[in-house]
């Protein structure tokens, strides 16, 4: 499927997401509360069937936090990027996609650990790398004078 | 009956596979000449490293104790770990102009990751990798090295 076709198919399947034909992949921007239903449809729609969660990245956009999902389809070998933005920096939360892709479990724990984004309904949301005394190091406003030496 | 045949075939194939494995190890046992172990401290004199081996960063000096470092500091900027510090000095040339030279080119071997960016980006090829690989010392401070030799000068013609 060509990218433009994929774009059209995605736009038809998930009308509530803002879809854009990005530089590399089709990009979708979804509100956090609609994320789970959008993701579910992206996986289950037979002409999309995004059944592989390639990558799950936590982002700090300065003002907002965000989560970026890279999805791939086994059958069609096409990719799409789903983005969601959370404006609440103090108590960020987004729905977990573990029930859709079980492989998301570790990714989400990592994002929780490094950026402090909570995932609702996550089976086992604990910090994965760092202990509880650390802040959230991948946030842009994270300060650590002891361990980070900037040139 | 079939299971009985399977049973004995299993035994036979199992023993055969074990014997095949034993021929490999036994083969090496009875051919002791095939050992490849390097007798490292003994072969120190004859051990030659590859010419591109990244042992440590050095600043080659010629026989007149001259180096090529102009003290521009590009290596310092490019080093990802901050293992290079260039301490510049100024020198008044014969024409009376002030010129930037190096006072000390400090290299922290303990922080170096041997990425090679300093050597690659040096505009005057003043740095190089040596084949020295025995870096062990008893004191961490000895890992901090001054690369330009005392009393050395900038090579003529290098800007």
């Amino acid at each position, binding site marked *: 499927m060509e990218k433009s076709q994929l774009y059209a198919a995605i736009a038809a399947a998930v009308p509530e997401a803002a879809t854009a034909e990005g530089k590399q*992949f089709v990009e979708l921007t979804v509100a956090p509360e609609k994320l789970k239903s959008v993701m579910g449809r992206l996986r289950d729609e037979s002409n999309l069937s995004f059944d592989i969660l390639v990558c799950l*990245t936590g982002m700090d956009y300065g003002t907002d936090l965000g989560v970026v999902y890279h999805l791939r389809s086994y059958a069609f070998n096409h990719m799409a990027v789903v983005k969601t933005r959370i404006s609440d920096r103090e108590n960020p939360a987004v729905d977990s996609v573990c029930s859709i892709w079980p492989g998301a479990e570790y990714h989400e724990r990592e994002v929780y650990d490094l950026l402090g984004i909570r995932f609702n309904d996550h089976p086992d949301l604990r910090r994965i*790398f760092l202990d509880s005394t650390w802040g959230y190091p991948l946030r842009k406003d994270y300060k650590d004078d002891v361990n980070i030496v900037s040139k | 009956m079939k299971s009985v045949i399977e049973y004995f075939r299993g035994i036979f194939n199992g023993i055969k596979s074990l014997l095949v494995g034993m021929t490999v190890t036994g083969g090496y046992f009875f051919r002791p000449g095939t050992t490849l172990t390097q007798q490292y401290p003994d072969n120190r004199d004859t051990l030659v490293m590859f010419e591109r081996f990244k042992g440590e960063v050095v600043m080659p000096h010629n026989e007149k104790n001259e180096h090529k470092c102009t003290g521009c500091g590009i290596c310092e900027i490019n080093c990802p770990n901050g293992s290079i510090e260039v301490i510049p000095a100024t020198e008044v040339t014969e024409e009376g102009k002030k010129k930037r030279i190096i006072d000390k080119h400090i290299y922290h071997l303990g922080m170096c990751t041997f990425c090679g960016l300093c050597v690659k980006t040096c505009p005057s090829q003043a740095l190089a990798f040596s084949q020295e690989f025995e870096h062990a010392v008893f004191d961490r401070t000895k890992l901090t090295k001054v690369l330009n030799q005392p009393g050395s000068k900038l090579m003529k013609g290098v800007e």
Partner: protein
Amino acid sequence: MEVKEKMGRLENEEYIINMGPQHPSTHGVLRLVVALKGEIVQRVEPHIGYIHRGIEKMCENLTYQQIIHLTDRMDYLSAHINNEAVCLTVEKALEIEVPERVKYIRTIMSELTRIQSHQLFWATFGMDLGGLTCFFYGLRDREKILDIFEESCGGRMIVSYNTPGGLMNDIHPNFQNRVKEFLKYFRGVIHEYDDLLTGNVIFQERSKGMGVMTKEEAIAWGLTGPTGRASGFSCDIRKHNPYSAYDKVTFREILYTEGDVFHRYLARMEEMRESMNIIDQLIDNIPEGPFTAKMKPVIKLPEGEYFQSVETARGELGVYIVSDGNKNPYRVKFRSPNFVNLAPLNLMARGSKIADLVAIGGSLDLIIPDIDR
């Protein structure tokens, strides 16, 4: 609170054993908290982060050239492929076409990296199962590839050979001869691997039917690399989204359907042979030309986001770079294959024995620095 939570999960009548961080079979500082009932594993809980270095955070303060040498230290057995992943991402962002010569050399180097990684896998996997001799044979053969690396790149494991736009320096004049010599040598000794381990009845009994992942599970968990392909998940990036010179070679994607320890092992064995075939096709045809494209000394990616996957020895490594137009990236994310492959360990090992847990862990071929990053 965190600690209490953990205690609550563990405090019951099960026999809790820590495997790791100081344990011979965890290949690094992975800690597995294993709940046992007799010899049977009830639950495995990986605890990671012992060597978390925050590479993603460090990248935010470094230029694109400087990032390369950090990626070496993630999956140190696929160092060259990791370098390549970042370089490909940067080149894609800058829309640079690298010279053909670079593509060929990168591909050959990647395949050599894959072979040496699988050799080490074979060595350590044999050792995990108690066949200590495997370790020495594997390392002996791996040494020859490391010598090839050292001659051209100057480093053995940590090669840092790629740079955005090309290579650090050209291949050594001896390179082609040495690679051919190695292929000849390795084709001659690879049968030892099969004789010693693959065919061995004890090994087969221990590995067949252990830690099974079905194709559906593998896809759902995102298992990639030989681990995924042993389950029938056709996930070879080289095949499906070719990069560098992979579109110029013909090779087989090793696929099995069983998804057990034995077939993960077999997939790696076959991949070594397939890698040798790939090198065969390329080694004599390296085109002449420059070893690097023309690059500015300071690389600034145009604003945007870039994602590129490559196939490392362990699976799909994705590099996701978000740039705000500066010389430093805004955010770098590495989708490391080991991190993903570790996740279903509990699923695989549940109900097997301790010895199987070691075999399953070994068959995933985990590199802990890549998990922790």
